[in-house]
Every structure is written in structure tokens, then in C-alpha cells.
């Protein structure tokens, strides 16, 4: 029984990280229909910026996260203005190529600035807690609580605020939103800001349990794409549910079936879900 609860907790932790990354990806996709391959690079930069501000200026972990969220969010906006906005009238393939270009650029840049070696981020939350036969660390509890808090905030923001409503409006119908007077450029920038911020937050939370290195975005980005396809491209509940499905299937699959085949289990699940719901679990109708 112990192992089941332990693995459920492990699945929850990893699912939280996946969900946060997938949320950023799905937001941008919902609004702009761009599969942002560079999202993994934003994730990586988020971790580096948090680490740098902590080490260089000795900031508190949470202050460092706030700075990182802001900086990476702005970087997202910059990406939109400099690249994706310019390509708004180009065929969709150009967006994809540009996204891959940004990914390569940012990774090379990170290696130039911070070097290629692994770095570890230490937080004040390393202590081990044993409760109900579970072994967890404070950092893992933070990941879970933090992720859920951010998801709730995001939901409230989108559903209850005026600015959030403009994002939903634009996701539902771009032309329509434009016609009723929504500034679509601003909404696009806002979406990129949110997306970058979410990536930075996810990275800053999960970096202490792993390491910070230029290739760290690859750990999550492929899985995030799986999640948004599974959940429905552009769907927010889809990204959340999809993230946890993948997290649990990995941890439980590794325990009760086979660790070597845990990725196969996750992808098999994708195939099964898509055969019944070809558009994903929550086919998008404005989030």
C-alpha cells in the first residue's frame, strides 16, 4: 500500500510540472495557432535566471522566481513582437521554422552565457518530511501546491477578469474579437507574457529536484506537446488533466508494468485516447 501512495505522490509532482509547461504552450496555441517549439527554451531560461539572481544578488528564492517570471514573460513578448507578429501574414510553416530557430538560438545563447556544465539550484526547502508512510521533500510539496495555486489563479484570471475575457474571446474567434474592439496585438503580447511566465515558474519550481543545464528544456517540451495533443490543442483544462494523466501513467506504469516501457505506456495512452476522441479530451471551444 505504501508504494502506491508514494507513487501517486511522485506522479502528482511530475504531473504538476508537466501541466504548468503544457499550460503555457496551450495558451499560445489557442490564441495564435503557433506550436511554439521554443517554449522549452523559455523553461530553461527561467531556471537560469532564477539561479543567477539567487547566486549573483543573493535574492530570496521567491523574489528570484518573481524576477524570472517577469523577465521570461517579457522575453516571450519580445519573441512575439520581433518574430511571430512579423510573420502574421506568412504561411503557418514559417512560424514553425521560426520557433525552431528561436529554440536553437536561445540554447546556444544560454551555453555561451552560463557555460555547458550542470548547475544545481539549492533552495531552503530541501528537508525530508515523512508523513502517512510517505517520504516527501518540502520542495516537492511546494511544486504541487504552487502548481495548483497558479492553475486556480489562471482560471480566475481568464474567467473573472475583463482582460482574461479578451483572451478567451480571441481564442474563440479572432476576427470577431477584433470587430468588437479588442486589440488583438495587445492580447497576443499578453498571452506570450503569460506563457513565458508559466514556463519560468515551472522551471524554477522543478529545477531544485533536478539540475540546470542548457538542454533541460528537452526534458519537458516533448511531453508538453504530447499533453496538449492529448488534452486538445489550445484547451486549458486539457493541458491540466493531460499533464496529470501523463504524470500518473509514468509513475504507476513504471511501478506496476515496467520502468523501461513507461514512455511506451504514455504514448499508448495517447493513441487510445485519440482513437476515441480524435480532437483530444477537451476539444477546444474557447478553453
Amino acid at each position, binding site marked *: 500500500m505504501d508504494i502506491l501512495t508514494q507513487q501517486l505522490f511522485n506522479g502528482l509532482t511530475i504531473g504538476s510540472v508537466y501541466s504548468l509547461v503544457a499550460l503555457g504552450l496551450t495558451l499560445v496555441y489557442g490564441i495564435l495557432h503557433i506550436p511554439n517549439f521554443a517554449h522549452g527554451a523559455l523553461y530553461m531560461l527561467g531556471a537560469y535566471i532564477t539561479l543567477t539572481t539567487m547566486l549573483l544578488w543573493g535574492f530570496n528564492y521567491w523574489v528570484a522566481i518573481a524576477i524570472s517570471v517577469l523577465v521570461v514573460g517579457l522575453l516571450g513578448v519580445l519573441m512575439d513582437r520581433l518574430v511571430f507578429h512579423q510573420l502574421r501574414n506568412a504561411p503557418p510553416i514559417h512560424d514553425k521554422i521560426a520557433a525552431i530557430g528561436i529554440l536553437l538560438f536561445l540554447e546556444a545563447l544560454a551555453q555561451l*552565457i552560463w557555460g555547458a556544465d550542470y548547475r544545481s539550484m539549492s533552495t531552503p526547502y530541501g528537508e525530508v518530511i515523512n508523513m502517512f508512510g510517505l517520504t516527501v521533500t518540502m520542495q516537492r510539496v511546494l511544486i504541487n501546491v504552487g502548481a495548483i495555486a497558479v492553475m486556480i489563479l489562471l482560471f480566475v484570471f481568464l474567467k473573472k477578469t475583463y482582460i482574461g475575457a479578451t483572451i478567451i474571446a480571441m481564442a474563440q474567434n479572432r476576427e470577431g474579437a477584433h470587430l468588437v474592439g479588442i486589440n488583438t496585438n495587445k492580447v497576443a503580447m499578453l498571452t506570450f507574457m503569460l506563457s513565458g511566465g508559466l514556463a519560468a515558474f515551472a522551471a524554477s519550481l522543478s529545477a531544485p529536484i533536478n539540475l540546470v543545464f542548457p538542454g533541460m528544456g528537452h526534458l519537458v517540451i516533448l511531453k508538453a506537446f504530447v499533453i496538449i495533443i492529448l488534452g486538445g490543442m489550445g484547451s486549458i483544462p486539457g493541458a491540466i488533466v493531460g499533464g496529470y494523466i501523463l504524470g500518473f501513467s509514468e509513475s504507476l506504469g513504471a511501478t506496476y508494468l515496467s520502468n523501461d516501457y513507461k514512455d511506451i505506456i504514455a504514448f499508448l495512452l495517447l493513441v487510445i485516447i485519440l482513437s476515441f476522441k480524435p480532437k483530444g479530451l477537451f476539444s477546444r471551444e474557447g478553453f
Partner: protein
Amino acid sequence: MSKLRLVLFVMMVSFVFVLAGCIENTSNPDAGEGEAEAETQEADTEEGEKVVNIGYSGPLSGAAAYYGERTLNGVKMAVEEINTNGGFEVDGQTYKIELNSLDDKYLPNETAANAKRLLQENDTPIIFTPHSGGVKAMQVFNEKEKFIIGAYTSEPGVTAEGNELTVRIPPRYDGYMDPFTTYAMENFGKKIAAIPTASQYGKDWTDMLMPHWEEAGGEVVYNSSVDFSKDTDFFTMVTNALENDPDVMFIGGPSEPTAKLAEQARKLGFEGGFIIMDQAKLDEMKSVTGTYETFEGAVGVLPLVDAEYPGTDQFVEKYRQKFDEDPGSEAGFNYIATHIFKEAMIAAGTVDDAEAIREHMQAGIEALPEDKQVYTVSKIEEDGGFVTGLSVAAVENGEIKSIEVDQ
């Protein structure tokens, strides 16, 4: 609008420069800047001097870049030393060495392409590469094109097939099986859980260690590999491994993620010992956790900084000065190999006949001055492998303790 864009851009760029290079990490100082794709360390030749080109192909970008850089650093340092000492004389002609390095991103096919390029453009008699895949890719044509592969890999397979122009620099890993097994079994117990890295190298290692462990009367209770390039969290895997109540854990891969894995095992309550694959270095693992206590009872390769060969101290000091970090065995081995190649060229009386150079490797080893002996290579075997004493160490009471191995 475009003004705003410009201002934003300038702000972003300046932020990047503010960050650039200032990050401080007390336990793990900067590993040096990223390498350009093709870089040449040019030799200042004076009149009447000639240049020998030496090639290097290894991962200088991507996930394994730090590893590639460290191997390259060893070769670089040796080349610099040789050149500042006025080069070397072969048959009355003074030569200096020019090092041409190319990035292969750890991909064997790229190594092969790089080797072709190095041969065509620089006519290199020796090409270094730090991974077994690259070695095997070059072995397809190195005898025909006549160049020596400076193979930095402990994979026994690279010298098993009788390639006549391959020189394997580090000791074969099969030598570690016995001392590692004996130590772990005597000190901890007979049940082992294996969580090695998912690379081919990791699999080969595991396939050799597991039968050995069982032969020695042990039991394998868990065996599954971890993919450090795909898994964000190791808790799941470690939880499953610990469910089988192992006494010893076999782990390995790049040092830093391996250290993280060990740390997570400790957090989940594992109290046994570790067997650490030779790819991971104890001193580099320590830089992640800040203390050896996490790895109490671990048995692995002796860190170079703790070794006591005649030239080690001098090398460690020089390396620290130059690169501002502790050298690992990958830098040390490539350093002596470069010096040995130089001595072999002198002994062979030629700088471009690869076969002659290979034949005089033994003479090169014997001619290696004592102060360059970061490791002591006693001889080169028929198959092209250097014979170096195995250096094994264990962590006891939070400190590195060297273990004597009967050869």
C-alpha cells in the same frame, strides 16, 4: 512602434550582458566558454619550423558539451606546453603542433564526417575522440586512410576487433568489476539494484557487472535504466528500486545527474552503498551535493585530484590556473596521450606516417618524462590499449579513500 521595439531589444540585450559571465557558483566554477564549431589552436611557427596538425572531434555543444570541453582541455594543454617549449625535433626538423577541433554533438556519423574533413583540410595523422560511437565510426576507414584514433573510451570493444591504428587511452572498464563487486559485497551485502544511464555505454557496463555480481553470489533485485536526457525526476524509479530492499545500488552516467540520483535515493531512506560507473567522477558528484557524506560507502574511480602519480600535482595545479576548476581524469588522460604521441613521433622519426607512429608508441611511453605522468602508463598492448594501473576509491567517513587493487 519600431522605436519601442528597438528600446525593448536593447534592454533585453543589455540584460543578457549584465548576466553574462557573472554567475558565481562556489562549488562548481565556470567550465569555460562555449566553443565555436570549428576552432584551431594555431602554432606560432618561427622560420624553418613546420606544423603537425592534430585533430579532435567531440561534443562541444548540446547535453554532453561540458564533457567534450574537458577532454579537449587536456589535449589543448599538452599542445600548448609542447609549443611553448619550442616544439619538438624529428629528423633534424623542428615541428610545432596545431590542434584542429570540430564539434560532433556526440553523434557517431558527425564524427566520421569531421574526420574526413580533418583529413582533407589538415591532413591529420592523429584524431582524438572521446566516445566509443565516434571511435567505431572512424574505425570503418581509419586503416585505409591511415590515421590513428586517439580513443578516449574505456569500452573494451573498441580494441577487441583488431583495428591496428586505434589507441585506447583509459583503462578498460572490465577491470573494475572485481574490485567494485568485492568492496560493495563485503561492506554492505548481496542485494543490488541497478539504475544505470540509458546510453549504450551504460547498458554494456550493466551487462558486464550484473553477471559478475551474481557469480560472486549476489542477487540482482532491480535493473532498469534511467534516461538523463528525458527524465525530470528520479523519485519514481528510486522508489521502485528501494521497494526491493537492496543493499547496494549501481548508478552511473554523467557525474552531476548521477549525484542527483544518489541524493534522491538518500532522501528516500536508502542507507546502503553505491557502485559508481567509471563515467561519473566522485569529485564532480561532490560539487552537486557539496559533501561526500551523501555518497558514504560509494566505490568508484579515484578522482584525479586525489591521485598520487609523479606528475599529478603539477598537472592539477596548472589546470586549475588555466581553467579555474579541478581537472577530471578525461583531461588528464588526454593530456598524457598527447605527450605520448609526440614522443612516439620523435621515436618513429616521422610526423605523418601513422603506422610508424603506432609502432613506436611503446617507445613513446617509455620516453615520457616523469613530470608529465599524470597517470603512469606502463605499456601499450598489442591491441592498442594503454595499460594503466586501475585507480579505485571509496568514500569512507565522508572522505575519499584510495583502494589497492591487485592487478
